[in-house]
């Protein structure tokens, strides 16, 4: 018997998450409708001024993704807490760091799919121009989704067994994500609107740095979170 490597085990964890999502489709359906409702409410709240809507579209897009991510991350570890499945994985044994990588990729991929679904909605509601720099836009969305998922996976695992987990996750996560959101909103703005001072590169670097820092921190901390004392 040859056990899978760290990345092989992470791939199995990711595939398992996709299998569960494909069987139920509960998480994706919920976050799509939730974020659609959020974007719609923002457009109603701002009124019919198309210039204002276009200017604030990146912020609304990322707020929609952020709120949906709380639902998605919470559900991601609810399935692990049920029947103590996470403990079962650790005892199999699966290296906790492989579980972390697999869960981050699973959460990030779901958020990324959601972000792609929301783009045409943003066109319809906020009249944004997706054709200005589409490749950079996709890159920003990808980096932002990874940036939400890396600390989100750790905090979601911490709060999964807590009594007030639905309250605890956003309380822990939102303050950490402030720099990421700032960078993601600004970078998205410069892919949708003119960027005369060429600021996009700096924001992309900040997004990348945030991702690397939180992926490393999660990689180091997750074994402590996944195992009981």
């Amino acid at each position, binding site marked *: 018997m*040859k056990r*899978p490597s760290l990345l092989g085990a992470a791939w199995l964890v990711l595939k398992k998450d996709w*299998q569960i999502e494909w069987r139920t489709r509960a998480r994706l359906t919920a976050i799509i409708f939730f974020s659609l409702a959020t974007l719609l409410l923002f457009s109603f709240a701002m009124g019919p001024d198309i210039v204002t809507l276009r200017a604030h579209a990146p912020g609304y897009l990322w707020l929609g993704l952020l709120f949906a991510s709380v639902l998605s991350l919470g559900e991601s570890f609810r*399935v692990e807490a049920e029947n103590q*499945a996470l403990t079962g*994985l650790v*005892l*199999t044994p699966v290296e906790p760091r492989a579980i972390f990588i697999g869960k981050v990729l699973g959460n990030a991929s779901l958020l990324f799919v959601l972000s792609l679904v929301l783009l045409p909605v943003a066109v319809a509601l906020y009249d944004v121009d997706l054709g200005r720099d589409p490749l950079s836009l996709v890159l920003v969305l990808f980096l932002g989704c990874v940036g939400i998922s890396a600390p989100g996976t750790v905090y979601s695992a911490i709060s999964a067994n807590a009594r007030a987990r639905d309250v605890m996750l956003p309380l822990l996560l939102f303050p950490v994500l402030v720099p990421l959101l700032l960078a993601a909103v600004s970078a998205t703005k410069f892919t949708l609107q003119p960027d005369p001072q060429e600021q996009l590169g700096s924001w992309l670097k900040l997004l990348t740095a945030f991702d690397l820092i939180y992926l490393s921190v999660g990689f180091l901390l997750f074994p402590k979170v996944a195992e*009981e004392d």
Partner: protein
Amino acid sequence: MALALEALDISKRFGARWALSRLSFTLEAGRSLLLTGHNGSGKTTLLRLIATASFPTAGVLKVMGYHSQDEREALRPLVGLVSHASFHYEDLSAAQNLTLTAKFLGVEQPASVVTGLLDRMGLVARADSPVRQFSAGMRKRLAIARLLMRAPKVALLDEPFGELDPAGIAQMEGLIQELQRQGTSVVLATHLVEQGQRLTHERLHLEGGRKVTPV
């Protein structure tokens, strides 16, 4: 003779409550242990410590010669636990759950191994049903299939007869005896003392987390 279990003054605390207190015992490899005691006496906690799902607050626990905390990576492949929690994913089918375990264990030809185990546990007809639709007894059978796939050196069974029908109980007894014939040390926690004594060599009775002589 090598020791399967060696507990030296182990204690486990949850908050202010001591679930196990200064417990010492040994079990030779290949021999089996019956774990008895009232609800809350510490049986499940002890099984979780041996399985490395949790670690002693004080004392030293060695399983198959490995320190349960410091050498847990080497120890975990040698220990299998059937617990109150089944460790299965509710939204995956029985076959998918077992296949996942097989792939993590690096089992060659996982499909045929999984089908064989499901057939043996009488679950092959429901192989593609999600575990969410399973009865408690079927979940227990699936958990045992998972244990058999691991072929552990130490098998930890927490109330294995609970939720099983008479045929399932007879099958479970047969499986315990088969594991013992293969040299596996079985630690059996049950309230069915007579049945447990028939299947094991030694007995450890717990009261309030302490080892006591059974009355």
